[in-house]
């Protein structure tokens, strides 16, 4: 065997060719995702057309042609420089403190600001899964914060915080208060109702089923009307709770009935074996629920729970029906201001409201996606 006898076709390895352009990079992605089949091509073209049709006018309205400053309606009327004015942000700016605080007295508005800060702090503490001492965070959020908020917002004259009747509250303040109370109250109440519905005690079960089915069978508006109109018929005026409190109770009860069904769905998904294993370890009922069943049930229903929260957040706008000035109602009121009466004032107001609700709801939705992904990862560690 001599090397010279061998015939080589090639003396060096062939150079590596780059991957074909048509299947990688931008071109490849576009081909694979946008133009892979006739149906896909048609959809791509339709979507592109929709984007071209919708996005530029929106951008023009919201940004390019928008009026950012001005003292009154003159600024937002068509003029030589701006023949087709977009959103009248000047109007929002002029009314922004009303949108935030309602008629809350000027000198006391720092209390509302402080409340917003304390609430944001509590939410951040609980929402950030890696935060230190989240158990204290929960105590702060569910016990300390409600008391503090009540003291701050409603006032305790003895410690130098004058009373602010809830009829003066309004705007984002009311929306946030109603939504937060609804969310914070509905989850524990909903869990209790869901457990009650599956209870072995007939009285508890009957109560839970009746409550859930009754509340679910009635529109929120009816619940609010009953809370604000019918309650005073039975309770003397002096004893009747505050109008806002009544609405809060109505919203919380309404939301908890829905939450109960969501939680029940989660409970149904837990296999019997989990209950039996917990029972065999001598865990008493509430420990079993708190340590074994609910953590799993709430985990699987997290998307539905957040979905209910989002629905609740938007439903809070209905409290205007019983004469409470929530955020949307303040916009309603402000758009009638003759100083700012222009063809676009109302549109601007509603656009602003839409952006506000969207940001809040989308934030909740993103957060829940985040938590889901994190929980899924943790399980597969």
């Amino acid at each position, binding site marked *: 065997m001599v090397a010279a006898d061998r015939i080589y076709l090639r003396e060096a390895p062939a150079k590596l060719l780059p991957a074909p352009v048509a299947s990688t990079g931008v071109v490849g992605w576009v081909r694979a995702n946008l133009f892979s089949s006739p149906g896909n091509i048609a959809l791509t073209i339709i979507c592109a057309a929709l984007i071209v049709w919708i996005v530029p006018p929106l951008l023009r309205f919201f940004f390019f042609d928008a009026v950012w400053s001005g003292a009154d309606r003159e600024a937002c009327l068509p003029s030589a420089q701006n023949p087709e004015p977009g959103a009248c942000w000047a109007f929002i700016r002029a009314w922004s403190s009303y949108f935030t605080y309602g008629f809350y007295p000027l000198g006391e508005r720092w209390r509302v600001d402080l409340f917003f800060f304390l609430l944001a702090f509590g939410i951040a503490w609980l929402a950030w899964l890696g935060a230190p001492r989240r158990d204290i965070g929960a105590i702060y959020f569910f016990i300390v914060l409600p008391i503090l908020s009540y003291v701050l917002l409603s006032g305790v004259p003895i410690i130098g915080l004058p009373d602010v009747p809830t009829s003066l509250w309004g705007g984002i303040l009311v929306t946030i208060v109603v939504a937060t109370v609804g969310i914070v109250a509905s989850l524990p109440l909903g869990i209790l109702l869901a457990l009650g519905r599956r209870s072995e005690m007939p009285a508890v079960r009957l109560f839970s089923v009746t409550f859930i089915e009754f509340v679910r069978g009635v529109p929120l508006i009816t619940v609010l009307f009953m809370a604000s109109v019918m309650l005073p018929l039975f309770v003397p005026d002096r004893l009747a709770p505050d109008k806002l409190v009544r609405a809060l109770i109505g919203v919380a009860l309404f939301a908890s009935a829905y939450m109960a069904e969501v939680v029940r769905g989660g409970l149904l998904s837990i*296999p019997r*074996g*989990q209950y*039996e*294993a*917990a*029972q*065999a*370890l*001598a*865990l*008493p009922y509430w*420990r079993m629920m708190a*340590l*074994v069943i609910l*953590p*799993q049930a709430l*985990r699987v229903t997290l998307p539905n729970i957040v979905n209910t929260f989002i629905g609740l957040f938007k439903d809070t706008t209905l409290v205007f029906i019983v004469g409470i000035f929530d955020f949307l109602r303040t916009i309603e009121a402000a758009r009638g201001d003759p100083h700012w009466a222009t063809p676009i004032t109302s549109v601007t107001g509603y656009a602003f409201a839409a952006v506000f609700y969207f940001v809040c709801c989308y934030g909740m939705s993103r957060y829940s996606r985040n938590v889901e992904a994190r929980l899924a990862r*943790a*399980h*597969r*560690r």
Partner: protein
Amino acid sequence: MTNPSSGTDGEKTGWAVEISALNKWYGDFHVLRDINLTVARGERIVICGPSGGGKSTMLRCINRLEDWQRGRVVVDGKDLTDDPKQILAVRRDVGMVFQQFNLFPHLTVLENCTLAPIWVRHMPKKDAEELAMRFLRRVRIPEQAQKYPVRLSGGQQQRVAIARALCMSPNIMLFDEPTSALDPEMVKEVLDTMVELAGDGITMLVVTHEMGFARQVADRIIFMAEGQIVEINEPKAFFEHPQHERTRLFLQQILH
């Protein structure tokens, strides 16, 4: 088998488990017919028989996972009544291992084991973890302690389940077909763990079809069919001279 001090008054007797005239119906279906059984402390009982014969149901009556209509079950001298306190008292000292493992998927292996010691026995977390690690070493999977159950093989999961039950320092261990849901190559590791456990003198009641295990470990074998105890005997006699036709038939089928 030697009888310890007798007595059936429900107070501390020598018996680990006393079942008398136990009857249970699912609707019209009579699952347990007049079961009478006493198990001495430290005794190892294997229960076998065709499926649907009431083996698991009887086992699950011992920690009251199943309710019954007539009869009496006394565990460790504690009469199992409807009283929830009494039921919890019995369950604290009776460990159970299930066919489907039933580990808690949202907790790590270690947390699975420490849950009951911390929340039922009120043990400090650190002590509970030490205890859990001791039992995890015994079932030879200490290195899996920080993992979640889904990451473990079936055999490993079942061994965790055994460790979890042992962490409550039970006097009695119930095994409900512990190897039936396992792939064949994992059966041995679980059986080995159980054989080791049997050497410790803990009272064991095992529902299983593993006749090799029964022969090696059992003090008595119980054959159940149609909700009745057909035959109770020591392993040698049970396999070599089954008394009843039904037992012979079953053994033929299961031993080929």
